[in-house]
């Protein structure tokens, strides 16, 4: 019984962490907009934490480049399982308008596994909230598969 309560709680209390991999700040500002009274993501139990060790969901904005890919990997490794990664914006998904630049590796999935892609330039707050919800469903599945 307690086990099923834990499983249910996962979807009800996603603590997100937001990492900016060199975005233009457009997507970041939208992520932060989700926390304002207008969108109020705290309704869903979402808290924006600043510490990978407390986080369940990693939101990544911006293109990954050769300098910050190690940081991204490091942050991902510090998050305890179960965890989900959500790539936000055109840059996070593929590299966006910067994908041809010489220092750019590309999307977030070049470095760490991504569960959900949220499109847009910048991504809308509604789309980001949708993405987090979809991410939670994904990681519920993952936990189910792992037993």
């Amino acid at each position, binding site marked *: 019984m*307690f*086990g099923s*309560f*834990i*499983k*249910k*709680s*996962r979807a*009800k*209390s996603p*603590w997100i962490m*937001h990492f900016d991999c060199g975005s233009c700040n457009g997507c970041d500002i939208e992520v932060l907009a989700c926390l304002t*009274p207008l969108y*109020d993501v*705290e*309704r*869903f*139990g979402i*808290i*924006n*934490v*600043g*510490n990978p*060790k*407390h986080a*369940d969901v990693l939101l990544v904005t911006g293109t990954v480049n050769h300098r910050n890919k190690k940081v991204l990997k490091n942050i991902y490794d*510090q998050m*305890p*399982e*179960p965890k989900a990664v959500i790539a936000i914006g055109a840059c996070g998904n593929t590299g966006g308008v910067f994908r041809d630049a010489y220092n750019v590796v590309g999307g977030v999935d070049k470095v760490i596994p991504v569960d959900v892609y949220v499109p847009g330039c910048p991504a809308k707050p509604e789309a980001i909230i949708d993405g987090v919800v979809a991410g939670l469903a994904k990681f519920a599945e993952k936990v189910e598969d792992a037993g």
Partner: protein
Amino acid sequence: MNTLILVIIGIVVAPLVGGLIAGLDRRITAWFQSRQGPPIMQAFYDVAKLLGKEKMVVNQWQILCAWVYLIAAAVSVALFFAQGDLLLVFFVQAVGAVFLVMGAMAAKSPYSQVGAQRELMQILAYEPVLILVFVGFFLVTGSFSIEAVWQLDQPLIAKMPLLYLALGYALTIKLRKSPFDFSTSHHGHQELVKGVLTEYSGPYLALVEIAHWYETVLVLGLCALFWSTNVAWMAVLLIGTYLLEILVDNTMARMTWRWMLKRVWLLGMGMSVVNLIWLYAG
């Protein structure tokens, strides 16, 4: 036999009440900011989720420290419910508080270190106030036992109003609310990234959280003793105090530890001493 039942009630019911209070707190805070806020059960979801996460520790000390913090908090609540000795309650909860700091010190991370130093400052600020409040209890009832309080026919608050205000300071510090929330910033993305709690993760963070619920109930229980003669007034007093706490939390910015020491030692201890002299002379 009765004592045993009380102890069990204390250990089982206190965290449930503490969790509900935490949930209500977030609802009311959201209401202040004209948001809707999370469900009232949110604190339980958070802890259940944390319990189900991978166990990641920086070193073995943290496991021990998280457990000792939880056990000390639970034992102090149990002693409180068993009508035990106030001094014993005080020392047991102090042991817990120190172990939380030790766990944070065990990790090398600067956030955790700074948080631990600040937490020590907080302990330094509220412990003397708590002791003075207990001295007040002693002067009124002639004993440190909680049982003696229930035998009074006049509420304690009539005799020690200033000590109650001083206890309010201790409550704010103990609940880690603004303006005294500098060892664990409320919001994780602030300068401290959760301070003392930075290096606790997963199930161990959950233990610390449950211990915090116990402590909330313990300090609110101390406040309740101030109106021990009438249950209705006791409830009014508690609800009023906690609402005031939330209001202060939402209207204040975080201050520095120097400001806190000055405020709490000068005002808090000053008020306590004045009240004690009044009790002693009167």
